[in-house]
């Protein structure tokens, strides 16, 4: 039996993962509702002063995005691991990194992109000045793929564990530190009227580095979990 071409396999994987995501749409909504609830808690906790909220807005929105992503990451490979699909995929002869990349792409489209789309609303809630909103959206557009990419390594490492979810957050949050710093500083710089291209450029560089390296690390971790 001849092996289908890489692109064919990749597209087939994308379609399958999309279909699965569509059939589990209420599950996908949960992290987004979680995001909205977390953002709602901040004004309640620190007080509704518009100036205070504006100051902490970039950090709060980004941290909420981090939390929501990690929440959705735990299920990234879990059901496929438990019913044996992942094992069959690994045996299919297609590179495991390709399979991981397809899954990561779909994860970003169903978990990362909605955060990007919601972010103007979140900025409004948190009273972020208008100058910061486009930069917030931009930082999320290039930053949330990094969340999915790095998170996938953690998800693959913990997929065979019973209580992987808590461990997953412990593993990936330290790795998200540079992204959080750069993104929030870009938004704050934009609000202050300072140049912010440097920060966005670094995030973009990080995204490209993660895009090239993370699928292989994820594949290695999956192989280990399947062994």
């Amino acid at each position: 039996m001849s092996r289908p071409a890489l692109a064919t396999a990749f597209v087939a994987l994308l379609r399958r993962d999309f279909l699965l995501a569509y059939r589990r749409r209420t599950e996908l909504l949960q992290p987004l509702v979680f995001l909205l609830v977390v953002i709602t808690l901040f004004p309640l906790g620190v007080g509704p002063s518009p100036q205070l909220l504006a100051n902490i807005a970039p950090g709060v929105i980004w941290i909420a995005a981090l939390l929501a992503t990690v929440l959705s990451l735990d299920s990234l490979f879990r059901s496929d691991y438990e019913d044996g699909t992942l094992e069959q995929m690994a045996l299919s002869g297609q590179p495991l990194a390709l399979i991981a990349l397809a899954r990561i792409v779909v994860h970003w489209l169903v978990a990362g992109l909605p955060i990007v789309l919601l972010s103007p609303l979140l900025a409004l809630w948190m009273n972020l000045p208008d100058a910061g909103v486009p930069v917030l959206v931009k930082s999320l557009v290039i930053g949330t793929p990094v969340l999915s990419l790095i998170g996938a390594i953690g998800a693959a490492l913990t997929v065979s564990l019973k209580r992987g979810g808590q461990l997953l957050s412990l593993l990936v949050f330290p790795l998200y530190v540079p992204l959080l710093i750069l993104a929030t500083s870009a938004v704050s710089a934009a609000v202050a009227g300072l140049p912010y291209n440097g920060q966005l450029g670094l995030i973009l560089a990080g995204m490209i580095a993660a895009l090239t390296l993370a699928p292989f690390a994820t594949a290695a971790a999956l192989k280990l979990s399947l062994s």
Partner: protein
Amino acid sequence: MNRFVLFFHKTGSPPWFYRFAGKLTPWLWAGFVVLSACGLYLGLFRSPPDYQQGESVRIMYLHVPAAWMSMMIFALMAVMGFIALVWRIRIMEVLTISSAPVGAAFTLIALITGSLWGRPTWGTYWVWDARLTSELVLLFLYIGVIALYNAYDEPRKAARAAALMAIVGAINLPIIHFSVLWWNTLHQGSSFSATGSSIHPSMLWPLLLMAGAFKFYYGANLLGRARLRLLKQDHRKRWVQELLAGESD
């Protein structure tokens, strides 16, 4: 087979490694005791107090070497973990995971001594300074590696997962360090560079002696932990049975 390759192959065998490490460990402990005795004597009695920081500067002789060790051990874990993953050498898996608690301990020492040093000099136990923060993140990375190892039931799989996490962490560590550095810094810059140091010899010598002592400590502690882990993993194998039988005679 040349001698180096032979040595390499021998070290990969658990019984041989166990005996070799057992012979090496007392020497490493001796090195640690001698160097730290000299280093502490010079540091605590023979080096001058700082003209600004007074006697509190002596915390440096623990703080700086511990911080160096915390980073060096993580880097070593990544290197050993890479070897373990690529060539599947079990000794390397054992050494990688056995390094983690030692590294975490050094990170904790660096953080605690740093905060005690910060109180008299900066006026506060904790600030969100760049180096403190990246050291704290490093501690979380160590804890993550250890927690991942403990979460698996099968020791070899656990060690390989921990090794992979160590590699991913080590690639990120410089990025974390520089991003945090750029974010906020109060800490003084490094006094060392490739061209020399800006520290007076009376302070430099005890510092270097302590740094050497800590490396011996790491070696001794690591080999002790690795031997114990090997015994536990292989407790049903013949070489351990023979070893135990030999000791009970």
